[in-house]
């Protein structure tokens, strides 16, 4: 019977079905209000996030990439500067650095998929201005070490928390540990909108005011521009959808962690499974296992109706876009190995227990044969 179950990697339909009545009513209210840009809905959402994270200043922006670009600009990062980025991340982490004219300097990762803080110090030179740790998959990076290195070299720390809302590092919310936190609200994210959206979190009021100007053409008021720039705003309707999501976020996170535990219990003897370091709290935006038989396993799962992904099959330094930086195969041995071993299993909150069991059983079957 299990064989008939198809397990999708993500299913927007299920999520919408659960939230339909509240989403429909909210969307209708926003559209009926004629208030489509900034204003009350965005402010309400920012307040909720501020409370949730315990962070005084939260700014909603157009997307997670813009969040990083704006953070870099707020620190005046530009041509001639270097920013250290873990080499296993979504391309936007490096794209944002390149967008402001700076050089992304890649750092290898460890088996937790996050920046290797042992290898990090030797990448720092006079041109280095920022460390951009990524809490990949919703698992916190080693922030104590990152902050210590940053302090030593007087560097800013911008956390790429695109995948990690609600994750805690030693009790502290990710995105609120460094100088700036950058979040994405892309539809696949744990907290999401129905289009593009992002968030910036800061503790410093001056920085916040500067970012707020940047979000809206540098306008002090309707008729006065103090710094020419772009705009990057979260649409009111998307803010309202995200506000509703805030009411469910803890529940969604718990469900992701529960599924992760089921996977761990069933698979820990067969593959490498992610485990929280003591004191950490991962939110499993993705649940990534490691196995040397990744491609065969993925094909086997696909044949049995289980959809999986790889985040990400090409490390940043081997992307065609990075060719100008002069890296080559072999430069980041761990990341390169992980690119061949990582497999993301379905972990969205609406996934049913029987589906998780099917994934576990299918993987167990695979290793029985192989």
């Amino acid at each position, binding site marked *: 019977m299990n064989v008939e179950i198809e397990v999708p990697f993500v299913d927007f339909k299920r999520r919408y079905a659960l939230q339909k009545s509240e989403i429909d009513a909210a969307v209708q209210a926003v559209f009926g209000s004629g208030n489509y840009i900034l204003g009350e809905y965005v402010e309400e959402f920012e307040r909720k996030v501020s409370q949730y994270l315990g962070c005084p200043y939260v700014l909603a922006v157009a997307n997670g990439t813009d969040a990083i670009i704006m953070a870099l600009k707020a620190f005046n990062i530009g041509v001639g500067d270097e920013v250290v980025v873990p080499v296993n991340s979504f391309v936007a982490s490096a794209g944002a650095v390149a967008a402001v004219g700076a050089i992304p300097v890649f750092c290898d990762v460890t088996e937790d998929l996050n920046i290797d803080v042992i290898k990090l110090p030797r990448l720092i030179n006079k041109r280095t201005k920022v460390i951009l740790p990524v809490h990949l998959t919703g698992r916190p990076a080693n922030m104590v070490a990152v902050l210590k290195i940053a302090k030593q070299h007087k560097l800013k720390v911008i956390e790429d928390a695109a995948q990690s809302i609600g994750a805690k590092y030693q009790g502290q919310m990710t995105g609120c540990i460094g100088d700036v936190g950058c979040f994405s609200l892309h539809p696949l994210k744990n907290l999401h909108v129905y289009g593009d959206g992002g968030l910036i979190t800061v503790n410093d009021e001056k920085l916040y005011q500067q970012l707020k100007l940047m979000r809206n053409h540098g306008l002090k008021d309707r008729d006065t521009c103090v710094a020419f720039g772009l705009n990057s705003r979260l*649409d009111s309707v998307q803010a309202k959808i995200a506000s509703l999501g805030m009411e469910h976020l803890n529940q969604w996170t718990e469900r992701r962690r529960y599924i992760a535990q089921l996977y761990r219990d069933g698979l820990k003897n067969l593959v490498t499974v992610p485990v929280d370091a003591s004191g950490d709290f991962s939110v499993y935006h993705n649940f990534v296992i490691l196995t040397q038989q990744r491609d065969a396993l993925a094909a086997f799962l696909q044949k049995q109706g289980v959809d999986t992904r790889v985040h990400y099959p090409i490390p940043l330094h081997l992307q065609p876009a990075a060719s100008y930086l002069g890296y080559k195969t072999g430069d980041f041995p761990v990341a390169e190995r992980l690119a061949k071993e990582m497999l993301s299993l379905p972990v969205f909150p609406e996934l049913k227990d029987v589906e998780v069991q099917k994934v576990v059983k299918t993987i167990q079957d695979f290793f029985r044969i192989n």
Partner: protein
Amino acid sequence: MQVKNFLPGQYVRDNQLPINHNYLQQQFADYEVILDKIKQVVWKGDFTLGEAVDQFEARYRQITHTKYAIGVGSGTDALFLSLKALGIKEGDEVITTPFTFYATIGAIVTAGARPVFVDILEDYNINPALIEAKITKRTKAILPVHWSGKPCHMEAINAIAKKHGLFVLEDACHAIQATYRGRSAGSLGDIAGFSFHPLKNLNVWGDGGIITTNSDALAEKLKLMRNHGLKGRDECVMFAYNSRLDTVQAVVALHLLEKLEHIIASRISHANTLDIELKTISQITVPQREADIKQVYHLYSIRCERRDKLKEHLIQHGVDAKVHYPVPMHCQPAAKSWGYQKGDFPVAEQVAASTLSLPVHEFITEQDIEKMVRLIQEFYQ
């Protein structure tokens, strides 16, 4: 937000004036139809560069008579990404008008270039006769703004650009469906940016924009640039940006596109009526209209004596008169480092000091127009 019934068939927010600039609730009185279409998107999870974006881009190519239309996050991003696609960078200069919205200049500055201003004509648009004097070795592009929905004198501008090997980027944010000598705004230069901000002639429920071009190379680059430089899911061929028109906003835009002809026709008709009436008032200057230019009146702006007092008078009597905009770009605090001063662009400065915009959107009635005219006549008596 409390909604109250103001006049039969008219719904306005209670903090608005009866004759208003913000008409979104009236425009989207049928929003339930749009919500049903949006639900289809949600069921499919088709949120990012979805089917409706493709459909809208296809329709947009038709209405602008261009080969490519690329939906992006905002009109500002449309201009910025266009400049980047043209290769504008640090040290370059871009010639433009000081009488524009901040985003025009913001896009140039963010691309790393310096805006070089040229004064305007009495029609609020860049004066082509003054452009050549400002061209230097560093000049890479001319960025004419079709202010208020009136296309610039593009033949003259294109001729200068051709002579000096410059790109032409149209800021067409106000100018959907405007034409110059029979050709559509957005098809008049190398590339163009449009905005769908909620108060534009074609608008969405948030931010949105589109880029039009006939260039294969620019279109290919821009499709990458708006989506992280991704070719497929896993391969990144250039580090770039994220600036996408949301699928749900494309649904709104497609819906409104069906009404666009009516929207534009109403604006033109209201503007023509106002023109006739206001020309008889000696304290008012109505900008010159040109037979071979179809302007679409995103703004209906006139110049008037004692502008601020007139504006106050109109507001007091329920007319949402606005100034777009009182301070030209070269006089903004943000422009300080370029060393311009007051007096550098006398026409732009005069216009900024005397311009006033009256609502001419599709929900303005004949009675509204009569009232506005009467109030202005009264004021000057």
